[in-house]
């Protein structure tokens, strides 16, 4: 894998406090797992950047190698890989996701 893909990923996850690699776009997710993570982030009122791996084969393979994680979506907070759909869902339900966002100083809507 050329370093350029890794460099690009690194600059994306450093460039936004919250960044999502997904299938489709936040407006039009093209996979149920990606859609669920978008829904959770929207519910929490978290602004996030995203990249559509379906548009770039190189990115689709590169992101899997970058994180040693075989599936999309992948969520990064402050440059750190937090998880895919299952982990994000579980963390949202337990409140851990909000705690993480608060700890990392990421803008979001406080939950009741």
């Amino acid at each position: 894998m050329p370093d350029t893909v890794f460099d690009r990923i690194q600059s994306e996850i450093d460039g936004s406090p919250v960044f999502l690699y997904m299938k489709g776009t936040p407006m039009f997710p093209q996979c149920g797992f990606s859609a669920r993570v978008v829904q959770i982030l929207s519910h929490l009122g978290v602004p996030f950047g995203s990249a559509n791996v379906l548009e770039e084969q190189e990115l689709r393979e590169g992101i899997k190698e970058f994180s040693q994680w075989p599936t999309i979506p992948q969520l990064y907070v402050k440059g750190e890989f937090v998880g895919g759909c299952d982990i994000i869902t579980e963390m949202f339900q337990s409140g851990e996701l909000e705690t993480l966002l608060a700890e990392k100083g990421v803008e979001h809507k406080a939950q009741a």
Partner: protein
Amino acid sequence: MAMPANEIEALIKAALPDASVTIDDLAGDGDHYAATVVSEQFRGLSRVRQHQIVYAALRGRMGGELHALALQTSAPT
């Protein structure tokens, strides 16, 4: 592009012999599964690390032959 549930279980148990593994075939198509894996080896690890161990056990099939495996991992309570 499907994979039988017992094959998934066998691969996980080969890597984590102490694990208790429960697998549900969500859509009945041999392609969308939910797995719950409980192993002492997960204790103290982050969820990402726990899932990475399971993905490693599946030796590259996840994301390829196996399209969807919803994972839940934990250490025994």
